[in-house]
């Protein structure tokens, strides 16, 4: 395969899809790690308690809210 194959539209499309998937995967992995540390304070049980699962879900959604706030804060600075 030579370098010109990289301009193949089929390959380009796949690369773009994979880029998006990588970004989503990275985001999920990062948030799972951070929210696990915040929400799962004891030893993992055989089932999440309802407070643990709602904490995880809230954690992810509040992170998104925060991201939006931070962007707005920076936008209002200039």
């Amino acid at each position, binding site marked *: *395969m*030579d370098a010109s*194959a990289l301009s*193949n539209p*089929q*390959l380009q499309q*796949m690369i773009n899809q*994979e880029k998006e998937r*990588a970004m*989503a*995967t990275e*985001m*999920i*992995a990062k*948030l*799972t*790690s951070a*929210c*696990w540390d915040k929400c*799962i304070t004891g*030893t*993992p*049980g*055989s089932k*999440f308690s309802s407070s643990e*699962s709602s904490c*995880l*879900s*809230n*954690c*992810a*959604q509040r992170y*998104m809210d925060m991201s939006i706030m931070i962007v707005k804060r920076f936008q209002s600075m200039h």
Partner: protein
Amino acid sequence: MDSFSSPSSSSPSSQMSTEDFMDQLKVQLAQAYAEEFLETVRGKCFDKCITKPGSSLSGGESSCISRCVDRYIEATGIISRALFNSQR
């Protein structure tokens, strides 16, 4: 990278098809994602379950590890649903 090179080394000019390349790329990406996930789970469950390393893994530690792995996978699902399927 080795697995990206053409399998027929006798004819170096023979080109790997785009389809083959894409298939190999997908396999390698899946492997990379799996390895990274595994490494994260190792770290998290080591922190949670092996609090005082003894001379061997105790029964309690082993069952903690199994539960920890299951819960981490479940947590990943909860987080992705919260991010991508939230009706807000």
